């Protein structure tokens, strides 16, 4: 109720501001604006390449090493004040260009500033990033309670590759000997169920689908029922891509999750699928999906492109969300467990 009052009040504030602008115009002269400098239509002819941190570090530490006195060595071993502003700037550039984001980058920089880099810049940065990304449980849980069927729910915004990810997960799980039922819970997007059906055919998984526009909860419920009846081990549930800013769509997702978690189903994983090209908006996505569907981990797709997916560092920092899967190609086998070491190396090496 109070929100409603606020909303109306805000509307009235608009009136107030507008009114005062009008009053002011009527009583005052509007001052001139500064002259414009036209900008070229192409701002950047060639995007500056990411600096090669590793190469820079080697040469820097080599040079520093040669001139380092005993006092400096002692200071370094204590890990204090060993990084130059130039080095920190380089780190900043590398992290920003990988979509790590300003906030997280600043936090990492301040950590490096405080703790120094006794074993060199890259080593310090690497160990910090790996530590961040290694936190949390990165395994995928398949062991449901007795008499229940494990359900993995895949959620995310539009176009991140949810359905494709499910197809690849299905393929891997079938290959490792599980019997899998796919639930075509994306009843909104034209032809999403068809896409999943093709994956079912390719992988030999079973599929349950509803008609377009039918209730996604019902489809997933049916899939769980079928899996239970046939003694299948795992239900992979697709959901429609949805805006994380819409209350209704998030509520629908919460409901879908509740339905899927009802006996005989048991939701063991809720995977937020993220596109590696996504920038800072992923933070907002993670926050909302976490609240609505109790996300257990991330699948980072399209990592084979030029994007580095540094945003997962920000997500690890902010929400402690582990990355469980990475997609590195369009082939069936191009979905892999997440390896923090490899990921960090790719992030740091240009």
């Amino acid at each position: 109720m109070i929100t409603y009052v606020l909303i109306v009040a805000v509307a009235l504030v608009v009136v107030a501001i507008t009114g005062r602008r009008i009053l002011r115009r009527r009583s005052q002269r509007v001052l001139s604006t500064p002259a414009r400098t036209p900008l070229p239509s192409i701002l950047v002819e060639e995007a500056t390449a990411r600096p090669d941190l590793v190469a820079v570090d080697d040469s820097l530490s080599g040079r520093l090493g040669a001139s380092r006195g005993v006092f400096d060595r002692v200071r370094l071993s204590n890990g204090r004040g060993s990084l130059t502003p130039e080095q920190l700037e380089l780190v900043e550039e590398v992290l920003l260009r990988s979509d790590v984001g300003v906030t997280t980058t600043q936090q990492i920089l301040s950590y490096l500033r405080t703790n120094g880099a006794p074993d060199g810049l890259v080593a310090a940065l690497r160990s910090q990033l790996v530590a961040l990304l290694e936190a949390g449980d990165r395994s995928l849980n398949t062991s449901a309670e007795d008499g229940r069927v494990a359900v993995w729910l895949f959620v995310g915004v539009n176009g991140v590759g949810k359905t494709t990810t499910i197809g690849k997960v299905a393929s891997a799980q079938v290959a490792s000997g599980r019997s899998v039922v796919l639930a075509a819970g994306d009843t909104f997007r034209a032809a999403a169920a068809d896409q999943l059906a093709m994956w079912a055919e390719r992988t030999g998984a079973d599929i349950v689908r509803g008609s377009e526009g039918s209730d996604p909860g019902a489809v997933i419920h049916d899939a769980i029922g079928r899996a239970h009846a046939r003694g299948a081990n795992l239900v992979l549930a697709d959901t429609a891509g949805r805006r994380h800013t819409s209350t209704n769509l998030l509520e629908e997702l919460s409901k879908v999750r509740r339905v899927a978690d009802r006996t005989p189903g048991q939701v063991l994983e809720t995977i937020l699928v993220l596109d590696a090209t996504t920038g800072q908006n992923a933070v907002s996505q993670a926050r909302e999906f976490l609240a609505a569907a109790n996300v257990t981990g991330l699948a980072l797709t399209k990592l084979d492109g030029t994007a580095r997916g540094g945003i997962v560092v920000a997500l690890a920092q902010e929400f402690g969300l582990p990355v469980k899967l990475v997609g590195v190609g369009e082939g069936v086998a191009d979905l892999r467990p997440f390896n923090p070491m490899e990921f960090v190396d790719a992030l740091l090496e240009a």
Partner: protein
Amino acid sequence: MFDALSDRLERIGQNLRSKGRLSPADLDAALGEVRTALLEADVELSVVRAFVEAVKTRLDGVALSQSLSPGQQVIKAVHEQLIEVLGGTSLKVTYATHPPTVILLAGLQGAGKTTTAAKLARWFKQQGRQPYLIAADLQRPAAVEQLRVLGGQIGVDVFSAPTDPVSVARAGLAEATRIGRDVVIIDTAGRLSIDEALMAEVKAVSGATNPHYTFLVIDAMTGQDAVQTARAFHDTLELSGLIVTKLDYDARGGAVLSARGVVGRPVVFASDGEKLENFDLFHPDRMASRILGMGDIMTLIEEAERTMDKDVVADAAGRMMSGQFTLDDFSSQLNQVRKMGSLGGLMKMMPGMSKDIRKAADNIDDRDLNRVDAIIKSMTRAERTNPTIIDGSRRTRIAKGSGTNVAAVNQLLNQFKEMQKMMKQMAGGGALPGPLAKLAPMAARAQAGGQLPSGLGGLGGPAPFTSPAKGGSKKKKKGGRVTPPKNR
């Protein structure tokens, strides 16, 4: 999580006004904040650098305006520069003398090409053209099917064949010519930009169809990678323009600036929703505000000035400031606001609104306001000026008169009391509760002569403004010189 640029800048330079111009140190500090704001909006680092440099040149040595705080002046410069970059050149679609006009859509996987193809077809159809869709995306399972479904919804034929993309495009084009369609839109397979095989494919499709326009579809949520993508596609295809999608999400959309910055071609269309009608020409000013996290407050207030009755609003503002606020004021102001469209849509354009309010705004039923209006109209003049006289029997009468119930009347009276309190606080310059607190300095600045109110948070979808402008005819004689409203 993100602070709007305006808030950041306010922190630096509250008391610089007396100096008359920005000192180099102040300027550096301000530009540092501009840089952070752009990076948080996902603008690519090289583009940020070039942009900040341009803003610096623009601000260097410029005498500070008396009416704007230095922070506001920096924002104004940045905002204008953004508009210039985003909208500096525009693309006018001219139709081919020998139809069909061929349009090729390219972009990364998941950017929304297929949906955009359908939306574009719908747009051309509304322009009185006969569009035709070619589904040359044979890579993604079910992409052709998706386009067929969408084509069915808008009544546009879709051509495809299970051969290869180049033959499909060629055959589709021939078919379009045969049946006399004058705009052909080709949807291509999504690619990861470094994937040379797929890049070669789209190049082959382009070579085979010789499109008049090639648009790159980019997702507003893209991060730093936007430049690589835009560059790669531009090098391969010679883009004629950009189409930005998913503006209904809460991303700031700096990717648009990144892509625009390296390609130098205009952003032509913007898509802000899953529905096929959520598609329109691109508005650089809105995008600029969005990138800066200013909400769409300027658009909002300018729209307010266009739509609302100026005398009524000016009068209302004056009364509010002196702490007067009656049910009559409430009713008339609410009606002014409603001229601008739905309250929910309006709320989404407001900066500084918390997530909760935004969500609540999604669920506002404007019919509730009709009920509110009916209740107020069922009161006598005396009751409206002084609601404290409304006792039990008056409540019953008002409820009957308005076709509601006593509970609804009570509710309105209680809400009104709350609002009256807020208005008093605002008039007294006191602290406001919750999110409104953020509006207080904005309101204060608006009064003090500031032009750009502080703002926070991404904006939601733009509200539909449908009401025609109703200008106030009489000018208030009170106080000083009268200048006509400046059109921005």
